[in-house]
């Protein structure tokens, strides 16, 4: 019972930090904290085998979104290898 409240409250805290941070690139670590918290909430709400797939899909999708935003901000989707 306490675990799910911890995840949800920390997600809201990170959301407030996203709004108050001025630098666009330094917002992205807080977005990452939100996706950790929300993936934890999804898994704790409904213990079912398919929930792992839902949490992983949400987490990977959110990570890909942050990756695309950061790469476009830095100047294109090129890879530097």
């Amino acid at each position, binding site marked *: 019972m306490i675990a799910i409240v911890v995840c949800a409250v920390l997600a809201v805290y990170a959301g407030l930090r996203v709004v108050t941070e001025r*630098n666009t690139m330094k917002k992205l670590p807080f977005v990452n904290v939100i996706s950790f918290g929300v993936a934890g909430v999804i898994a704790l709400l409904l213990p079912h085998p398919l929930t792992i797939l839902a949490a992983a899909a949400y987490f990977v999708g959110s990570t890909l979104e942050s*990756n695309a935003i950061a790469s476009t901000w830095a100047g294109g989707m090129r890879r*530097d290898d």
Partner: protein
Amino acid sequence: MLEEPVRILIAAAICWLNFVTVDLIFKLPEKGGVIGATAIAEQVEATGGNKNGGFMMGNIVSSPDASAGTLLAACGVYCSGLFGGLFAAVLVYIGNRICYDPGYAGTTGCLTATLIVYGAVQSGWFAASDFIAGMVIAILTIQGISSMYASRLIGRLWRIRSRFIRAGRP
């Protein structure tokens, strides 16, 4: 069994040690994996942080590494036992390949976290839900409190790690 808040804090310490150790072994603070991670590191350094710590923060943001592996392993063990943790490792590997990453750090972190969480649940001292909340607290200390102090802490750990590289160990 201990009280639940105490268990969550102990689980947070275990998760923190697990993912920071695996990330340092796989040299995440050495360079940015994608161009976005390098941009985040430059911004962190411009506001008073350490560049190697910024590289690790950028790599955590832009691809699922050992921290994501620890969280999804805890979710997998919570939902369907040992098999769920191994399934989560496969999903983390696929997610790493989607985000242009080799995927060794995430998969290794997920496998070690599966063993740790499953062992802790079998020993009767912890529940798997403690590790989910503990991992959220652990990632908050790196990404969510202060990017300046967190990156300096990782930079100090990376200096210790890079001593072993110069001594010839992989």
